């Protein structure tokens, strides 16, 4: 890799040990992916939950945080993904004091590095949305795919250590989606139905993601005439990234790099693969459970926007969640503040639900919560969550937000 004089100085430790560590990490990753040099990035976003970090990760951050302020502070605006603990409610969820203590240590260390603890995976809806062409070092696959696809920004998937390295150096290795040639479509899908709900949009993402199945392929989607909202594309992107590790999609006529099909591919050489109504039905059919007792209904992954929070409150008004079922609505601290101000949190909680902030369900010691609470059957409208949560010992089921709420009230999957 070609390094600038400043990058070389960082690598040689002339700008402190944290930046030496960061530059060395970036060179290792850059060489692995044949990066020729680094690209300057304007923001970093990092996974910061302690279930992922573990004791070892927290100790690593604490070690960096012990350096002098000039050496340890990040050089660009740097924010965090959801953590694992809502300190107000963790005991209700039967998370342990040890989990909360590890999380407190992590927060203290991150703050010492100058990181803003936004604790959100919907920063593109709530904090500072990137603009087209902006180079970023973002973590959370849902954040990356949305910002690349819907906003036209340029980011690879940056895991926690790489996002941190980018924050400390203001750079990331130039490979993958930082190169224009890697943003052209390599797979083409024609959707033969119109998504009707957030979970339908998620299912389209899940189907396309599963078929694409590679970080290095870019799907272009045609056939959708319905106008999507930000929440629709949030669910579609998050599911696509989850099922296929896909970091970028184009939606013809909607996303900025694909005003036409021809703008992102040669239609004569790239045949369209159909995505049919039967595919959609089969996708939902993978997640059964109808008529079974539901232990926990989860709205999370991604965190809910204020619009989703109000939709949920509207559906719950005048009803009570069944006493054998737990209903969780998970959002960002910014949205939670608004939801409280607007009376939305009160309405959800009066119906028996619990509003959680700054965390995400699957990043929150989900296995330990399942054991402690006796949760097995989980119902959600998040396609991303049903893909993840099976590995944590849950039996996941998928339904629209409306049917999730009806099931939570009935105590069984309707």
């Amino acid at each position, binding site marked *: 890799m070609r390094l600038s004089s400043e990058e070389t100085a960082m690598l040689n430790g002339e700008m402190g040990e944290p930046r030496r560590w960061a530059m060395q990490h970036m060179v290792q990753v850059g060489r692995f992916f044949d990066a020729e040099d680094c690209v300057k990035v304007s923001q970093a976003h990092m996974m910061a939950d302690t279930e992922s970090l573990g004791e070892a990760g927290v100790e690593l951050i604490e070690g960096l945080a012990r350096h002098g302020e000039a050496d340890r502070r990040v050089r660009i605006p740097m924010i965090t993904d959801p953590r694992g603990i809502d300190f107000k409610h963790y005991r209700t969820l039967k998370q342990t004091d040890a989990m909360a203590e590890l999380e407190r240590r992590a927060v203290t260390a991150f703050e010492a590095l100058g990181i803003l603890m936004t604790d959100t995976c919907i920063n593109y809806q709530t904090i500072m949305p990137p603009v087209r062409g902006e180079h970023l070092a973002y973590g959370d696959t849902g954040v990356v795919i949305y910002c690349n696809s819907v906003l036209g920004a340029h980011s690879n998937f940056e895991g*926690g250590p790489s996002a941190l390295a980018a924050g400390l150096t203001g750079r990331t290795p130039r490979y993958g989606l930082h190169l224009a040639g890697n943003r052209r479509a390599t797979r083409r899908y024609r959707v033969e139905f119109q998504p009707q709900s957030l979970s339908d949009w998620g299912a389209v993402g899940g189907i396309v993601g599963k078929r694409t199945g590679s970080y290095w392929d870019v799907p272009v989607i045609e056939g959708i005439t319905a106008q999507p909202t930000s929440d629709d594309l949030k669910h579609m992107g998050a599911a696509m*990234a989850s099922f296929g590790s896909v970091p970028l999609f184009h939606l013809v006529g909607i996303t900025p790099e694909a005003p036409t099909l021809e703008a992102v591919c040669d239609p004569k050489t790239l045949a369209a693969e159909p995505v049919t109504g039967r595919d959609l039905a089969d996708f939902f059919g993978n997640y059964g459970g109808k008529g079974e007792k539901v232990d926990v209904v989860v709205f999370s992954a991604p965190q809910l926007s204020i619009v989703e929070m109000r939709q949920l409150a509207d559906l719950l008004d005048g009803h009570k969640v069944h006493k054998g079922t737990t209903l969780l609505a998970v959002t960002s601290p910014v949205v939670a503040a608004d939801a409280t101000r607007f009376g939305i949190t009160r309405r959800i909680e009066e119906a028996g639900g619990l509003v959680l902030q700054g965390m995400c369900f699957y990043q929150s010691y989900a296995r330990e919560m399942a054991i402690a609470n006796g949760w097995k059957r989980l119902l959600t409208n998040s396609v991303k969550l049903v893909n993840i949560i099976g590995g944590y010992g849950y039996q996941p089921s998928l339904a629209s937000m409306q049917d999730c709420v009806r099931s939570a009230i009935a105590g069984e999957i309707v």
Partner: protein
Amino acid sequence: MALIELKCHLGVGPKVSGTALVTDDNFSARYDLDRIKGIFSRPQHKLAGESYVDRILVVNTAKGGVASAWMLHEMASRGMAPRAILFNTVNPILAQGAALANMAMCDRFADGDVTRLIMSGDEVEVDPANGIVRVTR
């Protein structure tokens, strides 16, 4: 005993040896593993119930989220990690995680599908710095 030498892209991590555990399925530390027990836990995964600890894990590609980057480091810190992971193609997250965890990782094999070239139970030496994997069976 036959010795097969496979060429791949230059990788990361140290030179290691071990016994192969192979699948044509994909891999995510978050989605697929019980990291406390050191086994594949997602029921639909083709290696469900198998221990990956100290094995040379051979899989098709990476999937899912960014968590694996921290998780490989955490798993290695407890001695509950694979010695190496070989992919046909890896995504950035797993490569970043291997770099942090000092775990051997290689991909892009010149000789074809690595999940067919190596069989579970083979003895495997992984040399990331030179982009070479030696298989004894």
